[in-house]
């Protein structure tokens, strides 16, 4: 973007790659001998390392959550609306850590990385990663950074699932879990949408059973379709109506099947852009991690029972028009927390933007987010 950076921006940021040379055992039974995580951090860790916040990203997210990588960058990081000096996740008080998850395609070890055993990209051989695996790798990251306990672990959507998993797997290592626009498990409908996305990718002729890198090609068409269907589930009927309505690109119908409606060309554009920048195997893996997430499963489906080990306080937020993970899904989680006698606060925020609302700073969302984290900051002396 800009000639000068906004004063509430974290400014120019640069990622660092952190190598982990200890093997990590994964839920699927496989072990990765070593892995890299790419990380951005904002703000300063205080002397007693009590002011750290971990940001967990969603399906297509990555480590670049705030600020600008170059002065030429058009848009800031994906959660810049909420991270920065004076913003809800206030970088003048907190040390904020944002990573690209294991299995990702933005620099952390994933399917497009070189498999040291073969000297070739992992491709489809990369193990299927679960939310619990991510949390395990994030705990290694915390060790590396000298963070014994997070002031808060924060995430929206799939990121919220990681925050929840943290509270179960490392109960003493976080004070607060902020779970936004998330769910304790996917519904059949959610899984069905993921399956359509995966089918779109795997049925692309350029997919080559996940070995497209060997063929020096990309399953662009499949990824584009996957993104298009995904994107629809992130928006609401009302917000799509508001943005596009039935607007045509030209004045009259052309009685053909090209993109005539604005919404069609928007989706195609989004899909195409995504297909150039995202790895298909990572997309498969991320959607599978979503499908498998179900912390209640091991407790016979009883989420309250599964929550027993949690020690942190929870903030759960949902958005009124989110039909991907509806407020009812958040309430399911909240009710289990109440039953398990955990400390939990909950609000349903009125916002027209569907699931994407967690990325958009509506006044009530910002107020709650700010008030809650202000209290967390006071609690940890930040």
């Amino acid at each position, binding site marked *: 973007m800009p000639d000068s950076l906004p004063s509430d921006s974290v400014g120019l940021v640069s990622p660092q790659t952190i190598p982990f040379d200890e093997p990590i055992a994964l839920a699927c039974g496989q072990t990765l001998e070593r892995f890299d995580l790419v990380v951005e951090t904002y703000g300063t860790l205080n002397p007693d390392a009590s002011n750290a916040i971990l940001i967990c990203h969603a399906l297509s997210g990555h480590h670049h959550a705030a600020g600008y990588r170059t002065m030429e960058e058009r848009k800031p990081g994906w959660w810049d609306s909420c991270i920065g000096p004076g913003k809800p996740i206030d970088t003048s008080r907190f040390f904020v850590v944002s990573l690209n998850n294991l299995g990702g395609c933005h620099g952390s070890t994933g399917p497009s990385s070189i498999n040291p055993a073969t000297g070739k990209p992992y491709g489809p051989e990369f193990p299927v990663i679960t939310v619990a695996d991510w949390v395990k790798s994030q705990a290694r990251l915390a060790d590396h950074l000298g963070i014994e306990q997070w002031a808060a672990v924060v995430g929206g959507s799939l990121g919220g699932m990681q925050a929840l998993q943290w509270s179960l797997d490392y109960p003493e290592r976080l004070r607060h879990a902020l779970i936004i626009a998330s769910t304790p498990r996917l519904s059949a409908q959610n899984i069905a949408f993921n399956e359509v996305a995966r089918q779109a990718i795997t049925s692309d002729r350029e997919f080559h059973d996940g070995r497209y890198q060997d063929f020096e090609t990309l399953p662009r068409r499949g990824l584009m379709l996957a993104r298009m269907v995904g994107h629809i589930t992130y928006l609401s009927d009302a917000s799509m109506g508001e943005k596009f309505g039935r607007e045509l690109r030209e004045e009259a119908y052309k009685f053909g099947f090209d993109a005539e409606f604005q919404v069609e060309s928007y989706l195609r554009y989004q899909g195409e852009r995504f297909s150039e920048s995202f790895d298909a195997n990572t997309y498969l893996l991320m959607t599978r991690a979503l499908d498998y997430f179900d912390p209640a499963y091991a407790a016979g489906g009883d989420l309250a029972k599964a929550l027993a080990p949690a020690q942190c*306080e929870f903030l759960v937020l949902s958005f009124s028009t989110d039909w991907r993970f509806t407020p009812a899904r958040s309430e399911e989680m909240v009710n289990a927390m109440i039953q398990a*006698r955990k*400390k939990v606060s*909950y*609000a349903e925020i009125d916002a027209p933007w569907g699931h994407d609302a967690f990325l958009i700073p509506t006044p009530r969302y910002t107020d709650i987010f700010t008030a809650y984290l202000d209290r967390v900051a006071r609690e940890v002396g930040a």
Partner: protein
Amino acid sequence: MRPDLEIIQQWVQPGDHVLDLGCGNGTLLDFLQRERGATGFGLEINPDHITTCMGRGVSVIEQNLDTQGLVNFDDGMFDVVLMTQALQAVRRPDKVIEEMLRVGREGIVTFPNFAHWRLRWGLTLSGRMPESEALPYKWYNTPNIRLCTFKDFEALCRQKGIRIKSRRVVDGQHQNSWLARLWPNLLGEIAIYRITRENAK
């Protein structure tokens, strides 16, 4: 501290698990947490109040008693269920009271007395709906849609097999007064009831 809150906190035991229905900005729960080591939740629907609660470390759930009830709470999971100055604002106070004593061992309820002499006097003299410090609204915009008198409330408790363990009566400034103790339904403005199931210990 407000005398009604002073009375309520005496009825909450250290470490009690408390549910506060219509917890407002969380003043009472905050106090109970800090002074009595209580734990628990507030339910609230006002967005600003909810934000304030979150900012002060009071666990608050956005939940509408009228539409959602308390179905998400298990039987007997709270020691005390509080409802201060909100009974008159719910659609079915009778059901709310029953639910309070389902999820809690004990209930503490406060509400304004519609039989206070000033309200009676105002209605008699002016022929207009009464207003007071405890009930400062117009008839058309009042959130208080289920006004009752102390006698009405006590009749409802009898009918439902609810035992009144204690009753304290205060005036509009929440002050104790001997006159209100003498003749509560006429001279008391706000009552604080401590209730439980008849068969409870």
